[in-house]
């Protein structure tokens, strides 16, 4: 069975704490993800996401605080806008935008984090490997919704 690699960028204040919470609550989930803790979801540059795909990630997950809860007031709104635009670009680059997922998960939502990881892993498993690192410019055929 194809085991996708999922790169997660987690905001320190909410989603990374949610991931910790999932651990403290011993909620088991698929081990396909690997996390990078950033200060705020708005620290994540689309370049980082693209680079993750290039280095072998089959899916990229971005987690931030719920709207209105950002530790830095409005970082998550900046992320929301960036990602909306970047998804359009991804499609043009031949990467299925479904491979990138943005979620608001608060520090109290350990369960939601675990469930999201399982769900996203399955979603990426269904999409199959990206292999952007191997096929460089061979584009994925992206079907319209």
């Amino acid at each position, binding site marked *: 069975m194809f085991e996708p*690699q999922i*790169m997660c960028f987690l905001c320190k204040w909410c989603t990374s*704490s949610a*991931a*910790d*919470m*999932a*651990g*403290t609550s*011993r*909620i*088991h*989930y698929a*081990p396909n993800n*690997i*996390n*990078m*803790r*950033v*200060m*705020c979801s*708005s*620290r*994540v*540059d689309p*370049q*980082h996401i693209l*680079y*993750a795909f290039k*280095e*072998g*990630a089959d899916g990229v997950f971005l987690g931030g605080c719920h709207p*209105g809860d950002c*530790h*830095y*007031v*409005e*970082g998550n709104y*900046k992320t929301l806008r*960036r990602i909306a635009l970047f998804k359009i670009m991804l499609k043009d680059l031949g990467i299925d935008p479904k491979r990138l997922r943005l979620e608001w998960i608060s520090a109290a939502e350990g369960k939601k984090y*675990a469930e999201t990881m399982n769900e996203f892993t399955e979603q990426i498993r269904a999409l199959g490997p990206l292999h952007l690192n191997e096929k460089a410019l061979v584009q994925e055929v992206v079907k319209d919704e």
Partner: protein
Amino acid sequence: MTTKPKLKEKRIGLFVCHCGVNIAGVVDVGKVAEQLKDTPGVSFSTDYVYMCSDPGQQMIIDTIKEKHLDGIIVAACSPTLHEKTFQEAARLAGLNPYQIEIANIREQDSWVHTDKEKATKKAVKIVKSHVAKARQNENLDPIKVDVNRRALIIGGGVSGLQAAMDIADHGYEVILVEKNPSIGGKMIQLSETFPTLDCSQCILTPKMVEVSRHPRIKLLTYHEVDSISGFVGNFKVRIKKRPRYVDETLCNLCGECEKVCPQVVPDEFNMGLSFRKAIYLPFPQAIPGTYTLDAENCLGLNPVRCGKCKDVCDKKAIDYDMKETITEEEVGAVVVATGYDLYTMQALGEYGGEKYDDVVNGLEFERILSASGPTGGEIRRPSDGKVPRSIVFVQCSGSRDSEKHLPYCSKICCMYTAKHAMMYRHRVPDGQATVFYIDVRTGGKSFDEFYMRTVEEDKVLYIRGKVSKIFKEGDKLIVWGVDTLTGKKVEIEADMVVLAMAMVKADGVQDLLKKLKIATDIHGFLAEAHPKLRPVESLNAGFYLAGCAHGPKDIPETVAQASAAAAKVGDLFAQKELVHEPTVVPVNDELCSGCGICLTMCPYTARTLDPARGVVVVNEILCEGCGACAAACPSGAAQQRNQTDDQIFSMLRAMLRD
């Protein structure tokens, strides 16, 4: 690419924790340590049962010294738990604490996975990514700045007074700036206060006197804050002194000037319900106790001089040639207590407040109720001075109407309307008091009991519904409304109508707030740094909020918030120097093109464009290190310390390759 000085290879020590069986039960910790021992940069690798234990920490300290390590990875639990512990251990060993990396292989690995092989593989990747990052970590020192231990309070209402008193009592100097001739704010205009019916003036005037006599409070009335520059702990304030044309040190309140002044104008203190002269004392207990000459209405300042007041002033206190002056003060913290205003009568045209004298707002009715008011506390209507036999009170005038007016609840109106109706029934026992309401909200200590007393003992009629129109017929006001409990239209003949107008942002200070770049919410009230955890701090470091400038609230809440703001100022002033995390986002001058994109990203105004050099400069003490600017910078000039783009790319490589 960003600047990447070629450093000699680091000597990184890797310490993998078993955490008993918490990690070792799932992750093969020995294998992690073994597999990574030859990773570039790693010169020492081991595992141990409890890294956080004293022997564990001692092992780290000893190894740093013995092996001359200049970077440490502790693969253990979440950094929220023991990052500080290991930073301290590093410091004891003479290593910069910012060379410590915590790899979370417990909460985000061993505790959430059961497949040992996969969990171990994942742990290796996690640790490897931190090695990649640690290779590029720099030594950092906390940013430190001095604190000027003086506070500026903007606004001399009850919140400003309370904050000033508290900060001064903490032992710090305070400058209190009030734009009106006297301190006291809106509270001094109120009659009784709910739910205890204390006389507002009786409880506020002692506080006003105390503030004016406090040795550490510099009271600047009839002054306005012109601008504030600088940053937390180090503000420079320009304060404008409006000319009073009366020397407050000479005026002895004899009142001769007022007697001879020929100019009669509406009295602001009585909400225009009575008149004052152009030279006036706002109210008898005004502080400072001095007359003020209102230049807009005075004849003496015009070319054809009147000069009557100057002629009669024995003390020679009046000087028509006073000019506006500017003074500068240096402070470390600012409490913004600029208060509120009421929604205007114009905005609610259907209630006729502009056309009919007998439709008044809550504050006007306070003056009518007040013993120091235009009627000496007797309830008489403004148009003809008759005692009203029927008064209709309209709650939520402008509040809680997201379609036409303001969506929020003004919070205090339910209670003061109950008080108004009660006071009216006490003073006009045969009068009919009717209240229109949407809901009656009485959340507060002894509030509901007060409301029930209004209904049950004082027989005030409460009708659930809104008023659609108020118009005049003869000398009566006709109030059209609906009773939503019976679904019937209601028409009431009233002698007077009191509108519980919504509280809105203070009109006169908006320019100042814009200039200060203080964050506000969509209604123009000041925004707190966090709605739950930092309710009295502004997002702008060094600014604190108090009172209704922050949103509608009653007197006890205002006082509590002012004291809390003062305590926060005390926290700031108690520090020897301000210490700030150094993991901020500076600018590389050579790469910065001065496009200014990062300025729009920063919620803290930490970044400014230096027009002379065409590059962005960063005030590191204001930067909170979120990194939004680093992600937006098109040239890579903005790089977060110890989380540069290079470091992120290296981590991604370490995590995802093979």
